[in-house]
């Protein structure tokens, strides 16, 4: 038993490492094939992709620039996911946070910069948090599926932003400017990490938030409560944890994080909010979180992977004329394979078609969650609210 368990651990850890790499390679290979068949110069495409990611000081900077916001939206999903909830509303939360943040960022001046920063971040966090908390409340109060409410709130947020950039009192009133919110005052703009690139200190903040995420989730009692709830809501009830409050809290924190991501992108990169300045970040964040298995390090790596692909994608298009749409296809494929824990064992069984072998390998690969599912499938409804 002990021996087996050790093997199990080793195996599973190996898999944890192997699978994403494997799926990355697989996805790139499929992408290569598709490009060839579409009549593009695939080799050149990947060459320029690489150039666009690591080719120059600027390229690396760009990759990191693209990485930064993904870290926030990814945490926004991961935090709720760990707590057993689904938050597809990262984008909406990000926008709302950015709106309130840039309202303060462009208005107040003449106060000490540190205070100004605090106010801006507070506003952004609060904005996102409230927006997120709505879904949480709807969930615990009305049992409204957060899956849907978060998506709907995304659309509502986007409309609200569209209003803000085109209407008083929010819009930028300088003549001839594209629809946007006023530029933030100079002294709150984040400093550049690398001169002559766009890499701003927001990246450091992202790493900081990632660290906080880790400490909170794995080192505090609240984080513990959230994770227990994610693992087994009944156990949370059994241990007398405030399940409903925690659900709302999780959504609020997630939303707040996304909001921070929004404002940091503004203070460091944009300097003013435009409609669609963060389009797609929400769902990419989901992908990143899942690819990174909601673990801090995993998120960092996955975020960099996606950020790099975005950055390199542009070069791929300028240099090899491959539409950057190709990139999102590749990203999609990567996730497909990366989130399929049985992929390797399945391929194994396709190669060695021995039924018992199949069964065995599957059993060995059974990760905790689905193991739990397997054990509880016949228990049917296990709704924590029911017994209340």
């Amino acid at each position, binding site marked *: 038993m002990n021996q087996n368990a050790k093997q199990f651990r080793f195996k599973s850890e190996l898999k944890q490492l192997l699978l994403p790499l494997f799926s990355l390679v697989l996805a790139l290979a*499929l992408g290569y*094939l*598709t490009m060839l*068949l*579409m*009549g*593009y*110069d695939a080799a*050149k495409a990947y*060459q*320029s992709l690489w*150039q*666009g990611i690591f*080719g*120059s000081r*600027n390229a690396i900077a*760009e990759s990191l620039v693209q990485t930064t916001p993904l870290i926030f939206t990814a945490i926004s999903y991961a935090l709720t996911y760990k707590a057993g909830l689904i938050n597809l509303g990262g984008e909406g939360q990000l926008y709302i946070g950015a709106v309130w943040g840039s309202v303060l960022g462009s208005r107040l001046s003449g106060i000490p910069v540190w205070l100004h920063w605090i106010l801006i971040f507070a506003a952004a966090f609060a904005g996102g948090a409230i927006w997120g908390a709505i879904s949480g409340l709807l969930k615990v109060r009305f049992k409204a599926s957060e899956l849907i409410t978060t998506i709907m709130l995304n659309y509502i947020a986007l*409309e609200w932003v*569209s209003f803000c950039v*085109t209407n008083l009192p929010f819009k930028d009133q300088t*003549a*001839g*400017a*594209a*629809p*946007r919110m006023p530029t933030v005052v100079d002294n709150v703009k984040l400093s550049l990490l690398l001169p*002559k690139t*766009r890499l701003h200190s927001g990246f450091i903040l992202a790493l900081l938030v990632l660290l906080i995420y880790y400490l909170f989730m794995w080192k505090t009692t609240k984080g513990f409560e959230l994770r227990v709830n994610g693992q087994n809501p009944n156990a949370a009830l059994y241990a007398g944890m405030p399940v409903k409050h925690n659900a709302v809290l999780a959504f609020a924190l997630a939303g707040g994080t996304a909001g921070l991501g929004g404002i940091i992108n503004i203070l460091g*990169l*944009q*300097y*003013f909010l*435009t*409609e*669609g*300045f963060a*389009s797609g970040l929400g769902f990419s964040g989901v992908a990143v979180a899942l690819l990174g298995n909601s673990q801090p390090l995993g998120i960092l790596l996955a975020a960099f992977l996606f950020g790099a692909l975005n*950055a390199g994608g*542009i*070069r791929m*298009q*300028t*240099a*090899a*004329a491959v*539409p*950057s749409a190709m990139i999102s296809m590749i990203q999609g494929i990567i996730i497909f394979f990366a989130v399929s824990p049985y992929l390797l064992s*399945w391929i194994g069984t*396709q190669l060695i078609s021995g039924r018992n072998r199949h069964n065995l390998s599957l059993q060995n690969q059974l990760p905790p969650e689905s193991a739990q599912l397997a054990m509880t499938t016949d228990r049917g409804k296990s709704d924590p609210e029911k017994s209340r």
Partner: protein
Amino acid sequence: MKKQLTVLLSGLLLLSSLAACQSGSSPSATTTTATATTAEAEQATTADSAAATTAAAESSQTAAASEEEIDASTLKVAAIFGGAINDGNWNETQYNGLKQIEEEGASIAYLENVGDTDAAQAARDYASSGYQLIYLTTNSYQDYCLPVAADFPDTTFVSINGTVNQDNYISVRIADEQQGFMMGLIAALLSESGKVGFVGGLEINPIKLGSSGFQQGVDYANQNYGLSVEAKRINTGSFTDVNQAKETAISLIEDGCDVVTPMANDAGVGVMEAAEEKGATAIASGIGQETSAPTATAVTVVKDVAVAYTETFKAYRNHTLSGSSTVETFGANKGVVYLTDWLTDASQEVKDRVTEVMDQLANGEIDIDLTI
């Protein structure tokens, strides 16, 4: 079951890809771009960006030294589009402009559907891989690309509808308001119900200008021809949601507007279709739009930005592009805004009035209020 699935899957992949190969109509643009860009990409990949720029710099300096026209074939021109190059409107006409530049011998490259944020990086990429002339096709890029222009003094940036004019960053203004004005005028003249509708897309300045132009066009008609036509102007907030544009137009028509006009790039098609289905009259705002409303389209008020491209390109070759601090306006005067032949038989009176006003616009005898 798994076996079957895999077979099916691989089959599917094959199918889709095969279909892809056999596509007879591959836009020649992309292929040429590919070949054209191969060289630069090499350069970009081997030499690092700095080296590339210096190379570019030298070439343009040598050109500057000798006063005669720069040979087009030595030039590399890039354009960054905010939307799809096949939107039958704003972007497409600019794409055509780029094509005309290519026909003059320059090698071209372009990016589509580039978000405001990515524009800067795209511009940087082109500049660092030795493109001398870069077109920025929407004014929302300006704020992001000005710093880039500062970093690459030897590359010239042409900002369509930009507002800034400084050494290597040249802005040209497209007279959207004139297009709107003509649409409004024609709509007013054609309207029998006394209500005309305008459907705009995203609420960006060009659209706003067009919209206010439309209003002024209607007012002009009301004043000068004793009409009393009401203009209803609506923005949908989207350049892509066709159904939204269509439904909006339909509700306009049902509200009593018998002439509708789109100014919403891709989504404009929806307005045309609405007019066609509901038996209203449509005034197209781009070449090709009339095809989706063959019977309903009265006339197309074209805003052919291509002209701005060819003009600026010529100026660049003659070293006359930069310098002026005032933003030049491209409108009826430059033949950017013009009318196609009438597709429905409007009364001769109407036609005459329209042509008359058109000429006045071209000669600058009518000035349109640009405050929005």
